[in-house]
């Protein structure tokens, strides 16, 4: 349904360029739940924004292809693009606190979107709004919708944002860290709601997060991003069972597990992700990697599919690709 091919997004700086996304390949099939994982600055949010051509200025898509249902998003005229946004692709924001117009009512948000994409009349959209708000668990939706966003709690606002994202029956839902700005207790509820709605309407979804733990429970497939590139992609089960990229392994070690021995210390990856201001060859993770070799610093590893090994170890379940010169072998790490 969604195909991204060699996407590049860059931001002009006072001096030089910031390469936020460097050749991203990604597909989402109908009904599939994709997770995109990476540290902040890995380019995951920018990639998500690029899908609906919403890269914040002064950034721009410098090359690549984005196809949604076979049509080229990058070449789409403004009019069709607007039909795509909201109508085909629903977005759930990172910070519900600031994502609603503070001076119009909640109902007005729904009304303008429903009129635009579904051509609903005022009365029809009122009914639909109540229905939608109820389905995301807003109590007393009839009177709530006449209020303003500041009258809602953070969790409630995110519920409204979710209702707004699915209001015009999109086919793809993109959630950019939908729970980072919320209390821990609310996070689980929101994710549960997200799961339920995706399942009920058979939506495809992209869940962007820095937390592999969230991916485990809420996605079918994972893309691990680092410095604007895909490091590894696999089904959730496969990735957790057989992480191949040292970076993925590092991320997995950061996820606290109840089963881990108490004495084990909480792992971290030393260093921080780079700001890529020159598109130099070499593996971007090399400076922080403990398996680094000279090759890693000079040649860029390509994203290659992992097949069954000649010696019979390991297996290829579905697709599992990794961009690494020295991938972690199965069984190498306990």
């Amino acid at each position, binding site marked *: 349904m969604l195909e991204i091919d060699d996407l590049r997004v860059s931001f002009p700086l006072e001096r030089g360029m910031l390469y936020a996304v460097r050749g991203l390949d990604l597909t989402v099939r109908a009904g599939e739940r994709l997770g995109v994982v990476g540290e902040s600055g890995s380019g995951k949010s920018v990639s998500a924004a690029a899908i609906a051509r919403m890269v914040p200025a002064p950034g721009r898509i410098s090359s690549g292809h984005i196809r949604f249902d076979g049509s080229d998003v990058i070449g789409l005229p403004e009019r069709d693009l607007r039909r795509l946004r909201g109508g085909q692709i629903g*977005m759930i924001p990172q910070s519900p606190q600031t994502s*609603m117009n*503070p001076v*119009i009512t909640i109902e007005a948000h729904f009304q303008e979107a429903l009129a635009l994409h579904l051509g609903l009349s005022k009365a029809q959209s009122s009914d639909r709004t109540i229905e939608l708000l109820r389905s995301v668990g807003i109590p007393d939706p009839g009177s709530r919708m006449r209020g303003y966003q500041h009258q809602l709690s953070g969790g409630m606002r995110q519920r409204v944002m979710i209702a707004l994202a699915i209001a015009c029956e999109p086919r793809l839902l993109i959630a950019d860290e939908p729970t980072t700005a919320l209390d821990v207790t609310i996070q689980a509820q929101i994710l549960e709601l997200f799961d339920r709605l995706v399942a009920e309407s058979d939506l495809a979804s992209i869940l962007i997060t820095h937390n592999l733990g969230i991916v485990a429970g809420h996605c079918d497939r994972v893309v691990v991003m680092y410095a604007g590139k895909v490091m590894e992609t696999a089904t959730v089960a496969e990735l957790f069972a057989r992480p191949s990229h040292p970076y993925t392994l590092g991320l997995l070690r950061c996820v606290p597990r109840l089963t881990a021995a108490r004495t084990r210390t909480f792992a971290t990856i030393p260093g921080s992700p780079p700001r890529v201001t020159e598109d130099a060859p070499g593996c971007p993770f090399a400076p922080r990697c403990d398996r680094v070799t000279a090759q890693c610093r000079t040649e860029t590893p390509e994203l290659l599919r992992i097949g069954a090994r000649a010696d019979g170890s390991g297996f290829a379940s579905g697709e599992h690709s990794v961009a690494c010169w020295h991938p972690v072998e199965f069984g190498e790490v306990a």
Partner: protein
Amino acid sequence: MVAYLAKRFLTLICVMLVMTMVVFALMHAVPGGPFDQTQQPLPKPAMENIMRKYGLDQPIWRQYLNWLWAVLHGDFGTPFSQPTMTVTGLIAQAWPATLIIGAWTIGISYIGGVVLGCIAALKHNTWVDRILTSTVSTAGIALPNYVVGFVLITVFGVRLGWLPVGGWGQPQDVILPVVAFSLYPLALMARYTRATTLEVTYADYVRMGRARGLSERRLTFRYVLRTALIPLITIMGPNIPNILTGSIFIEATFAVPGLGSYFTTASLHRDYPLILALVLIVAALWGTCYILSDVAYTVLDPRVRLEGLSR
């Protein structure tokens, strides 16, 4: 709402009372009186007569109470400098000129400023924006209005001879003072409009609106401008009294016989009744506009409630 307004106006009246007391005391603390400066010293009995006539022989608290009592009955007394008139009559004579200039200034600067500010913000980072911000808004704020006034007089009055260099009476007398006076509020408005609009332009909710497929036009008017312009009330409101009571410098530059020039002469002549009346007008107007702009703000912006505004 009624209770809130009552409370605000009550506070205003108290503050004004204190203020008149301060001004009253201040004026009487000054060595010398209003009638000392006449060229020929008056004979003693005549002086005593005048002092008695204006109540200046009484203790100061008594004078204040007398004055207050008269004011409450609508009588602001007689100006020392023009004994044949009443203070009320004098102000009624002087204010229209100031009001006309003020009204034009408010109209031009508020509308023009908001429009220019919006244009600059919507054309952010283009040459239009750069010219508007660097020259118009900054120069307007930095240049004293009487300096601008003199440039205008020199160019349009003296060199080109198109417009009168000053005075009051003909319709075209209004033009140059209004232009000179408008510049500062216009620049101020443009600057704030640009800032608030820009702040909103990059707000999350505008982005999210775009993500729902709303048109740029709708986003501009319903999402950006609607939220951005509301805070302007807090700047527009309190500036109204400043403009309506005139500028002492503008009126001096263009020889306009308005409230501002009367304030200057009244201060110079220690014309207590006139000064007090003018101070009262300025303060009352200021306080009222301040309260009204707060109310307007709460009515227009659902986020703000009156409780949060009471200071």
